[in-house]
């Protein structure tokens, strides 16, 4: 037990970094998801095509490859990100691409009658989306976003490979300095990630229950 007591304070600074990366990239991912999700339903074919290329590009390759590309390859074009910024951009764009599918499928799940009714009420396109479609689509999206947030949390551990001192990186340093800590360090790491994920797991479960409650099935 004593070794665990010694390890936890050493690893805590990494927790702050992991949480910072998590919050920043979730924020970026959600913004990207909405923009890309709506753009894929745009009435302009060019906008739809460009967004589709972005989404397929980021869903068709690995997160780690994208992270490395942004951190190691982009400087060749004169764009040099700090490890933190590179991590947030890679995670945000990658999960933004996944999230855009959640947004798109949720909007498509809203029955056609809603669109027709708003046209009949003489609403503008923007009003229709903002006042009728999105409020209903949002509750369908929420569990999907929650699941993506858990996936994103798992993805944050990859930033240790581009030298950002997150939980995983701190753990590796402690393990390197004292090999007898190897086993407890990784147990502590796994538990830390699980504890961060727990509120998300329960949140998703609650959202899933709520998503179907009190809504007339079309």
């Amino acid at each position, binding site marked *: 037990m004593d070794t665990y007591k010694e390890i936890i304070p050493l690893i805590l600074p990494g927790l702050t970094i992991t949480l910072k990366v998590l919050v920043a990239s979730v924020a970026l991912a959600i913004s990207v998801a909405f923009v890309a999700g709506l753009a894929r339903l745009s009435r302009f074919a060019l906008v739809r095509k460009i967004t589709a290329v972005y989404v397929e590009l980021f869903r068709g390759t690995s*997160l780690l490859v994208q992270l490395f590309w942004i951190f190691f390859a982009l400087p060749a*074009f004169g764009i040099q990100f700090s490890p933190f910024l590179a991590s947030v951009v890679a995670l945000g764009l990658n999960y933004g691409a996944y999230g855009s599918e959640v947004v798109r499928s949720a909007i498509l799940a809203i029955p056609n009658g809603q669109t027709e009714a708003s046209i009949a009420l003489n609403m503008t396109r923007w009003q229709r989306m903002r006042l009728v479609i999105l409020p209903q689509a949002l509750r369908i999206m929420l569990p999907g976003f929650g699941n993506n947030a858990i996936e994103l949390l*798992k993805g944050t551990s990859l930033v240790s*490979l581009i030298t950002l001192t997150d939980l995983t990186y701190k753990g590796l340093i402690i*393990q390197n300095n004292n090999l007898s800590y190897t086993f407890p360090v990784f147990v502590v790491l796994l538990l830390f990630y699980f504890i961060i994920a727990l509120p998300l797991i329960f949140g*998703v479960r609650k959202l899933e229950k709520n998503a179907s409650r009190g809504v007339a099935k079309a």
Partner: protein
Amino acid sequence: MTWDWQFAIEIFPDIASAIWLVIGVTFGAYLVSLTFGLILTFLRRSSFKPLAFLTYWFIEFVRSTPPLVQLFFVYFALPAIGITLNKYLAGILTLGIHYATYVSEVYRSGIDAVPKGQWEASRAMNFTKIHTWFRVILPQAIPPVIPMLGNYLLVLFKETPILMAIGVGEFLQEAQLIGAANFRYLEPITIVGLLFLLLSYPSAILINKLEKRSKLGYSANKKQKGMSVVGTDGEAVKQSAGG
């Protein structure tokens, strides 16, 4: 400094030569996840409640902790309690068990979709448990979820680069070595990205086609299912919306 074709062509074979290793690891891990996933599904349905409860939390734990840390745990920490694996085996087992937790959810959704009457009929016919599972339930539960299972093969494939962290020489590790030796990262890492795209995109389209076809075949009695997949399992949305 911009793209250098000659350098790119020169290093392409070195990176692409890792393809058999990557395919081997992917299929190895997939096999582990398909088998272990089925075991997890059975354990979770066990009538011995503590076992079902334990399995449930095992699945939640493995699903929500990073595969990279699990990989370190298996490769670095398990030897401390006497289990030593080489890096390939460690990689295959870690990825396999990680995705087994996802695959078991897929099996579960397939099994839940088998009508209750099938169980009752099997009981009425006095079938044994094994007989019921392997001759009645699973043959009906698995085919509808094959496209979803196929998606996890792609997800697994895209997850293989994390194995570079324990020195498995897959695409990204090769690219990283070449990049470090030449101080040029643009070409090698771009090639890795293209390789992934080249291998995964056609498969994604294929799986998507398969999915559309299987939906046609089963849509008669499962009209509601598409909706509930969107609503109750965001993961399924994420994976099945590919292509």
